[in-house]
C-alpha cells in the first residue's frame, strides 16, 4: 500500500513542501530503500525508524519498503524526516487506521531516537509558517521544540513526546492537547547586561555615540589606548538596545530556527542579537556557509549588533566580505548546491587600538611604534570599510580622579535604563516614519528614502555642503551623515534636522 505524508524542506529561509511517499509492497524481497536525494543523515534514518518502531511496540513489516522524498531533484538534508517515514510505514502496513484524506492536512516533522521518543529538531518555526498557508492544518512536532511554533496563528500545534503516544492520538485513544498560540509580547526588562553604563568611568562622548548607534542602528568605531573601556562599553550595549518589535522578532527567530540555535522550550527571540565573534573566525563562519549553507555571524546579528573587538586583527578577506552585507543588509552565499540569500542588516560596532603597541596618543606613556608600523597597522582596515562607519569616537585614557571610588564631584551619570528609554523613544519615531517600508531604522534607509523623509533646514544643509567640500567626503558619506543627523534629531524629538544636529553628526566623522 502507498501512503503520502506531508513534510517540508528548508532551503535557507525558504520552505518547500516535501511529500514523503512510503510504499510497503506485498511482493518482493524485504528491504528498506530511501530515494529522492537523501543525505547521509537520512540514509541512516533507516536504522532509527526501524529500531524506534520495534521499541515502541509496533511491527516493522518484513516487506519491501520504498520511501520517496518528492520532489526528487531537490537534495534533502535534515533529520526531521524520521517521523514522517515512521508514520508512513505504520500507515502503509495497516497499523494505523486513518484515512489518507486525514493525513493530507497533517504535517509531521521530527527526529526519532532509538526508543521512539522525539528529539529536538531545528526549523519548527518555518514549518509552522508554511503550514499556516494551508487551511486547517495540524503540525506534529517534537515536544522539546514545539514552543517555537506557538507564535504562528491559525494552525494546530501538537507536541509529541514519543511515537506510541502519537499513534494512540491518531487512533483517537489518547488525545494530545494542542499548544495554545501565544502573543509576541514586547517585554523590556528580561535582560541583565554584563555592564551598566553608569559603571563605566568617564567616556561621556563614547556613551553618547553608543546611544546614537543603538537608536539608529549606525556603525560605530571606538579607538583608544588599552584599558580605557572600549570592550566594556560594547558589552554594555545590549543593555541599551531596544527590544525587538513583533515583526522583527519573527525575522530573527526564523534565522535562529534554521541555524538550530533556539534552546528547547524557548518560543521566540525577543532580545536584540549581540554577536561578538573572535578574530579567528572563518569566512564561512562570518558570512554563512557549508555545503548546505547555514547563516553566519552577520545573519545571526541581523537587526542587532555585530561587535568586532580588535578589528585590525581580523583577516583582511573577512573584513572585506562585510562590505556587501553592510551596504545591502543581506548576504548571498553561493555553493554548488545553489545560492541562498540570508538577511544581514546589522549595526557594526568595532574597537581598535591606535597603533600596534597601543599607546599612541596616551597623555603620559610613550608609543614605541615606527611611523611605518603605524601606517601598516591602519592599512589593515581598508578605506571602503572605514567609509561605511558613521560614528568615530576616541576613547581616551581616564583621569584618575574619575576612577576614585568615592567621588563627590560626579553627580550626574547616565544609567543604562535612562539610555534605553531614550533609545526606545527614538525608535518609536522611526517605526512610525517607516510604516509599510519593511525597514526599521534610519541606517537602513536607501538614498531615495533619505531624500523623501529627511528634512534639513537650509542652515543645516549649508553646513553639510561646506563640510563635504572641505573634507572631500564621498557620496556615500554624504547620505550617511544625513542619516546620523536624522537619528540625533529623533533622540531630541525634532521633526527637522537642525544645524546643531548636523554639527554633532559631523564631529563623529572619521578623524584618523
Amino acid at each position: 500500500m502507498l501512503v503520502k505524508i506531508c513534510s517540508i524542506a528548508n532551503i535557507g529561509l525558504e520552505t518547500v513542501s516535501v511529500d514523503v511517499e512510503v510504499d510497503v509492497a506485498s511482493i518482493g524481497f524485504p528491504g528498506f530503500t530511501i530515494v529522492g536525494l537523501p543525505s547521509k543523515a537520512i540514509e541512516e534514518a533507516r536504522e532509527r525508524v526501524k529500531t524506534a518502531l520495534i521499541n515502541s511496540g509496533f511491527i516493522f513489516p518484513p516487506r519491501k519498503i520504498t520511501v520517496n522524498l518528492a520532489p526528487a531533484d531537490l537534495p534533502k538534508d535534515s533529520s526531521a524526516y524520521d517521523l514522517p517515514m515512521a508514520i508512513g510505514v505504520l500507515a502503509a502496513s495497516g497499523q494505523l487506521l486513518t484515512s489518507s484524506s486525514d493525513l493530507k492536512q497533517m504535517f509531521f516533522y521530527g527526529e526519532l531516537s532509538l526508543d521512539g521518543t522525539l528529539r529536538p529538531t531545528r526549523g519548527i518555526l518555518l514549518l509552522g509558517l508554511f503550514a499556516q498557508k494551508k487551511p486547517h492544518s495540524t503540525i506534529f512536532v517534537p515536544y522539546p521544540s514545539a514552543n517555537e511554533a506557538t507564535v504562528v496563528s491559525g494552525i494546530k500545534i501538537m507536541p509529541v513526546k514519543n511515537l506510541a503516544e502519537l499513534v494512540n492520538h491518531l487512533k483517537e485513544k489518547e488525545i494530545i492537547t494542542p499548544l495554545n498560540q501565544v502573543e509576541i509580547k514586547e517585554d523590556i526588562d528580561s535582560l541583565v547586561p554584563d555592564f551598566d553604563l553608569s559603571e563605566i568611568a568617564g567616556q561621556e562622548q563614547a556613551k553618547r555615540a553608543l546611544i546614537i548607534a543603538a537608536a539608529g542602528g549606525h556603525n560605530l568605531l571606538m579607538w583608544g589606548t588599552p584599558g580605557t573601556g572600549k570592550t566594556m562599553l560594547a558589552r554594555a550595549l545590549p543593555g541599551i538596545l531596544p527590544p525587538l518589535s513583533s515583526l522583527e522578532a519573527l525575522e530573527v527567530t526564523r534565522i535562529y530556527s534554521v541555524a538550530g540555535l533556539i534552546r528547547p522550550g524557548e518560543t521566540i527571540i525577543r532580545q536584540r542579537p549581540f554577536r561578538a565573534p573572535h578574530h579567528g573566525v572563518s569566512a564561512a563562519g562570518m558570512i554563512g556557509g557549508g555545503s548546505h549553507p547555514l547563516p553566519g555571524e552577520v545573519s545571526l546579528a541581523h537587526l542587532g549588533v555585530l561587535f568586532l573587538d580588535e578589528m585590525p586583527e581580523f583577516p583582511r578577506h573577512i573584513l572585506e566580505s562585510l562590505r556587501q552585507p553592510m551596504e545591502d543588509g543581506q548576504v548571498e552565499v553561493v555553493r554548488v548546491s545553489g545560492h541562498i540569500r540570508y538577511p544581514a542588516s546589522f549595526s557594526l560596532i568595532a574597537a581598535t587600538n591606535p597603533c600596534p603597541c597601543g599607546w599612541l596618543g596616551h597623555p603620559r606613556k610613550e608609543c614605541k611604534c615606527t611611523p611605518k608600523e603605524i601606517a601598516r597597522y591602519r592599512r589593515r582596515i581598508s578605506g571602503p570599510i572605514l567609509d561605511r562607519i558613521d560614528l568615530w569616537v576616541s576613547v581616551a585614557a581616564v583621569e584618575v580622579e574619575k576612577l576614585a571610588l568615592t567621588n563627590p564631584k560626579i553627580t550626574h551619570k547616565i544609567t543604562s535604563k535612562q539610555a534605553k528609554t531614550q533609545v526606545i523613544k527614538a525608535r518609536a519615531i522611526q517605526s512610525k516614519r517607516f510604516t509599510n517600508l519593511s525597514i526599521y531604522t534610519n541606517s537602513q534607509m536607501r538614498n531615495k528614502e533619505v531624500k523623501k523623509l529627511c528634512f534639513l533646514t537650509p542652515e543645516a544643509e549649508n553646513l553639510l555642503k561646506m563640510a563635504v567640500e572641505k573634507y572631500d567626503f564621498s557620496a556615500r558619506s554624504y547620505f550617511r551623515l544625513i542619516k546620523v543627523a536624522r537619528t540625533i534629531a529623533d533622540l531630541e524629538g525634532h521633526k527637522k534636522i537642525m544645524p546643531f544636529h548636523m554639527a554633532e553628526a559631523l564631529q563623529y566623522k572619521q578623524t584618523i
Partner: protein
Amino acid sequence: MKKFFNRKTGFLAEDLAVAALKEKGYVVLERNFANRFGEIDIIAKDKDILVFVEVKAKTGVDFGLPEEMVGKKKLEKIRHMAVIYTKGETLPSRIDVVAIVFDNNNQLLRLTHYENVY
C-alpha cells in the same frame, strides 16, 4: 530438544528448498555449485530462465529474520558466481532467495520463495 548443527540444518533446508522448487515445476540442474570464489546453493531452470537460488535458514527468529541475512554483498557474490557458471554468456537468468525458518526441533515453520531479488 535435540542439538542440531548449523551445517546439518543447512543441508536440511536445501533439501526442502529443492522440493519446493520442483513442486513449482522448476528443473534443478545443479546443487552446491562451488569453486574457490564462492558457492551457489541451487541452480535451476524455470521454463527458459536460468535461476540461481540462495537458501537461507534460521532456527527461530530471535536473532533476526533469514531475509535480513542476505545482504548486498552476498547477492553480488552470487551474481559473480553466475557469470562463472554461464562462462560469460548472456542468458535469460535471475536470482531467487528461499528463506526458511525452523523451530528448535528443526521442524519447518515457514518457507518463503522470493523471485528476482537482485
